[in-house]
């Protein structure tokens, strides 16, 4: 009656969820450093990883302080995308008339480059946080709507009929059947949207701002301070990763029953 072989401590450690990307990251940093040494890439073109780490280490307080305005704008923009995106998707999925009027225009507007119209936001709304929030919102809006429409449209009609047959009101049926069925698609859209909202906030900062990571990047480009610029990029990437992870956790809480949330099950013999 042999049971499954016990895993050694090392292979258990290697299988922990966060170790693998971390190892891969270390691999990339080593490869980056080697590439600079082998190809003799000059410091003003690509900074060495050691310099970037040095900046992260020494400027940590300022970078953290500058990360807050960017995070705040990202979150506000993202929440607006979710708040407006999901109801609009419900309308589009629910009514062919609404869909035929609105959806094509939405797709059309998506191709408008936000970086070109961002200066207009500063003209209309001033130099505060609003243009950044709007830029983040505009970038994050489309993925939410598209995924949510997909989710709402893929509801199993037999289940809806069954619920209606059991004398469920439209609202009860919506809450019990349509919404839960659409949730997996909505969350996938939210995950994409949150990383795009970071980009939007930075675009807003490039165009008009005295603070934020985008401002740090703009400043360091002008003074050829590439280590700081790359350090800012690292911070932005981390911000995206953390926000993505938060949305992922919320997804686990809201739809624990979905097939994508199942852990690998090991069967005992």
């Amino acid at each position, binding site marked *: 009656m042999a049971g499954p072989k016990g895993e050694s401590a090392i292979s258990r450690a290697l299988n922990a969820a966060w170790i693998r990307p971390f190892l891969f990251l270390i691999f990339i940093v080593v490869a980056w450093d080697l590439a600079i040494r082998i190809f003799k890439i*000059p*410091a*003003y*073109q690509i900074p060495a990883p050691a310099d970037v780490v040095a900046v992260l280490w020494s400027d940590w307080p300022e970078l953290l302080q500058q990360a807050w305005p960017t995070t705040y704008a990202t979150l506000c923009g993202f929440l607006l995308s979710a708040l407006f995106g999901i109801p609009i998707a419900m309308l589009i999925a629910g009514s062919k008339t609404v869909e035929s009027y609105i959806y094509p225009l939405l797709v059309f507007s998506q191709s408008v480059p936000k970086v070109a119209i961002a*200066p*207009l936001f*500063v*003209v209309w709304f*001033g*130099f505060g946080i609003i243009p950044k929030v709007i830029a983040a919102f505009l970038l994050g809006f489309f993925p939410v709507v598209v995924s949510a429409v997909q989710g709402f449209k893929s509801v199993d009609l037999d289940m809806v009929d069954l619920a209606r047959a059991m004398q469920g009101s439209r609202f009860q049926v919506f809450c019990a059947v349509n919404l839960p069925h659409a949730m997996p698609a909505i969350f996938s859209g939210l995950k994409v949207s949150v990383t795009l909202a970071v980009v939007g906030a930075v675009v807003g900062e*490039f*165009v*008009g*701002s*005295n603070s934020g990571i985008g*401002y740090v990047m*703009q*400043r*360091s*480009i*002008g*003074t*050829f301070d590439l280590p700081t610029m790359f350090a800012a990029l690292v911070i932005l990437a981390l911000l995206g990763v953390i926000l993505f992870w938060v949305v992922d956790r919320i997804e686990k809480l809201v739809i624990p029953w979905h097939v994508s949330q199942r852990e690998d099950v090991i069967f005992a013999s």
Partner: protein
Amino acid sequence: MRSILAIGAALIWTALSVAPAAAADKVVLMLNWYVYGEHAPFYYGKAKGIYAAEGIDLEIQEGRGSAATTQAVAAKTADFGYVDVPTMMRAAVKGAPVIATGVLLQTSPMSVMGFADKNIRKPEDIRGKTVAITPADSMTQIWPLFLKKTGLKESDFHTVAGDGQTKLNAVINGQADLLLGYVMDQSMKIKDATAKDVYPIKFADYGINMVSSGLIANTDYVKTHEDIVRRFMSATTKAVEAAEKDPKAAAQSILDANPKGGKIDTLTQGFELTIPLYRTAETKDKRPFQVTDQNMADSVNLMVEYGGLDAKAKDNPKAFYTNDYLPKGNS
């Protein structure tokens, strides 16, 4: 069949051998920014065939800031760059292989400007106003020196930051009273948009003696293409001299090449504002580009003290520029 091929090959061979012996050399010049009045000589030289006469087929590309253009020249994506030389010094001191082959603006065009009807004529008038800047661009890095020379402090006025377009919008729409810019660039763009005059307070009037725009090239390119560099500098010198004599035609050549490049009156006015900056008192009888060693040394010292340039730049200011490729003669 074979004889037809042989005759065909012979004909092509003959045609090629009587073709012009030397095709023009292709040269790419990247400007410091989108086109404005200051760039007229390049377009004029191309239109008048001055570059072609030296065997150069010139392609002019608009740039996105002196920093970006300097990087492009360092990476050999462009053969020559027309950039703010102090900005180039910043990159050179960090190891970028760039050198100025000719410094054109020997007096700085940097200024703080606003609508003329706001009556902001002297530095003291800046107190209490709102100034629009672009973080870390060439003017913003010298701004603290201007404040020092005029006795102002950052707390005396309000600052807003944005990119180039945002700065213009801010002044046009009243969100800011002033912006930092070149006397011949933003002032003309604002005039195009609003038909109102702009008054620039020039940094040079307050003791900031610094060179500005010039032509730069990659040091490797200069070594391997010495002949092209000489011909290019000779052609550009002639182009500048020709443009000085006929500013309106020079400005028109910008529009001929780039119909959306601006309006003829403001481009002409912009170029006319640029011409006085070509020379200082010491070089007033000389041809363009012949910057004095003293002027360059002063600029380096200023940059080290106030512009954040690494102090080791002072050890060898001559490393940043060379007049060796300029045409000889003083006609």
